[in-house]
């Protein structure tokens, strides 16, 4: 096969793969920038995927059918924000250990989405979902058009969110507050910034974005829901934030690198290269570990108060 065509195929496949982890990681970046390490991201994605799927599924036959997808997305954003709020209550207000609490939230989201799915839907069914939308003119550009402008509308949204979240972090008052409470919350407090409120807001935004990422999986990518739809992508997103050194652009790079590896692995099977299936499936997870091992130096650049609860009255 022509190497050019092979590259083209790999890249075309990589872009849709990157959307869910990119959305979730951009959200997680807000959490971590504000000083909270949310490992429950995966569980939030499960719930986002379920709600995003369920609303259009139930509205399929009714008069609301045309708005099913939009309502699904709104529901996913809402449930994500609600779970972010719950996590904020546990980690910010009660000051619980964030690592373990994150695992709790992951189990909760995973278990709840499975329970509700089995009760309300039961078996495997599909939805029409959100269809791809090639951008007129741009999608016809040779090579680049196919790689970048021939995707699901949610993919465009996700990529636009990269500069948007950069702008939000570095050019707006809210971003300034988020960066301050994640690095030196006491300094922020003495300047009249409400640390608790800012962390709550960041966690809700991060949760909403994780919910959206889940809905992308069920509505745009798989067009169905199952227990293992998310398959640890939330954890991968958390790892990407480290890898991207807390910068939206770095996260985009990580997400693309990661999804290129994944689409390469799938393409290899298509090209008929003999490789045990199980090893191909585990490849992304191995990659995460490698990436984390390489990104270890990044720690000093990040929000230095990451993982520590803030208590105004606690003395030095």
């Amino acid at each position, binding site marked *: 096969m022509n190497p050019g065509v092979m590259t083209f195929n790999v890249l075309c496949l990589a872009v849709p793969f990157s959307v869910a982890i990119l959305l979730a990681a951009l959200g997680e970046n807000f959490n971590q920038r504000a000083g909270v390490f949310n490992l429950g991201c995966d569980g939030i994605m499960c719930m986002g995927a379920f709600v995003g799927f369920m609303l259009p599924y139930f509205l399929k036959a009714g008069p609301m059918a045309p708005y099913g997808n939009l309502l699904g997305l709104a529901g996913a954003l809402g449930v994500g924000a609600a779970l972010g709020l719950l996590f904020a209550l546990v980690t910010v207000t*009660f000051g619980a250990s964030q690592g373990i*609490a994150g695992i*709790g939230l992951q*189990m909760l989201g995973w278990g709840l989405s499975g329970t509700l799915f089995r009760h309300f839907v039961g078996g495997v069914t599909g939805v029409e979902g959100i269809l791809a939308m090639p951008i007129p003119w741009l999608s016809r550009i040779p090579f680049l058009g196919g790689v970048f402008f021939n995707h699901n509308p949610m993919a465009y949204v996700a990529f636009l969110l990269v500069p948007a979240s950069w702008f939000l972090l570095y050019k707006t008052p809210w971003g300034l507050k988020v960066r301050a409470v994640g690095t030196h919350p006491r300094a922020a407090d003495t300047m009249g910034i409400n640390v608790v409120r800012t962390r709550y807001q960041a966690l809700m935004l991060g949760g909403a974005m994780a919910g959206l990422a889940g809905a992308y999986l069920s509505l745009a990518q798989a067009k169905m829901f199952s227990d293992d739809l998310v398959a*640890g992508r939330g954890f991968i997103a958390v790892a990407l934030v480290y890898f991207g050194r807390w910068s939206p652009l770095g996260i985009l790079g990580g997400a693309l690198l990661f999804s290129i590896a994944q689409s390469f692995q799938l393409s290899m099977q298509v090209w008929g290269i003999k490789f045990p299936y199980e090893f191909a499936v585990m490849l992304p997870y*191995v990659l995460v*570990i490698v990436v984390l091992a390489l990104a270890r130096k990044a720690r000093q650049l990040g929000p230095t108060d990451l993982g520590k609860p803030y208590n105004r009255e606690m003395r030095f």
Partner: protein
Amino acid sequence: MNKQRIIFGGAVILAVSLVAALVVALVLFSIGASPLETYKTILMGPLSDVFGVTEVLVRAVPLLLVGLGIAISFRSGILNIGAEGQIQMGVLASTAVALALPGLPKGILLPLVLLAGALGGALWGGIAGWLRARLQVNEILSTVMLNYIAVQVHTFFLRGPMLDPNELETGSGTPQSMRLPEAAIMDYIVPGTRLHTGLILALVAALLVYVLLWKTTLGYRMRAAGAGAKAARYAGIPVERYLVIAMLLAGGFAGLAGAVEVTGVHHRAIEGISSGYGFAGIVVALFGMLHPGGIIPSSIFFGILLIGADMTQRSAGVPANMVLVLQGVIILAIVSAQSFLRNSYAQARLFRWWSGFKPKKGAQP
């Protein structure tokens, strides 16, 4: 001091149980089940006959072993979320040894098989420990990833190299290993039930973990490394080494749990053999206050929950995933309650907030 700790622990458990019961009741209500009925089935159902009780204990054995390992790792300052994968590696290693040495007498083979399981799990846990100690890789993320990898490795072996030849012949192709030789299978304690001698093994292990953590210098070192890594370093304790040791031990206990499942319950390696024990073990350990004396009752309690959830799925149609929800809520509630009850500032704040609603008369002069 000790009395205070027990009161503290009791308060946490009580608060957590209440919150968890309420939240789950809400979920049950929303899917149209009666919370009270469901709770009754879950808690009473498994204990209604001898068989039920032995089944609870069969579930409690792996939970206890996994929970002990997790307690060691948490106490040593490393959060092991990877028991699920470590169990599967223990299953593979023990099955491989049992099938490779079928001729040995039971007195040699069974211990060897159990040891192999522990080593398999220890190796898998040790990877995460080493990554953390050497390369500062966050152990939560690495153990989660190792879980996903272990599932694939496990499946690969059961579908390929370790697949039962009979399955190939009959053509059903269920991914499972051959049945273990009799010499590698544990005895039953109560005839006619599945309760096996692994229970005794697990109880002895609990005692050993208690002695290890609180009576030996190794335990002292590991607890010091976990409770104050910086101070331990200044005192000449190589903290990184004990992180690795803690992960080896934690993985070892999870691997042992896998070996016990193979030799005691299933008598062969099958898919899905870990069945969530790895995650449930985290909850068991936290609910048992990371102390063997608490983990034993806590593992029995979660054994009841697991059996009870199966029963409600059959009788009331409540999906068994519900247990996962319950576990998640318990974790969230337990870490909240612990940090809240330890934080006198937060309590004072809550008290002020609460007394704000009352007339001023109640306030202290």
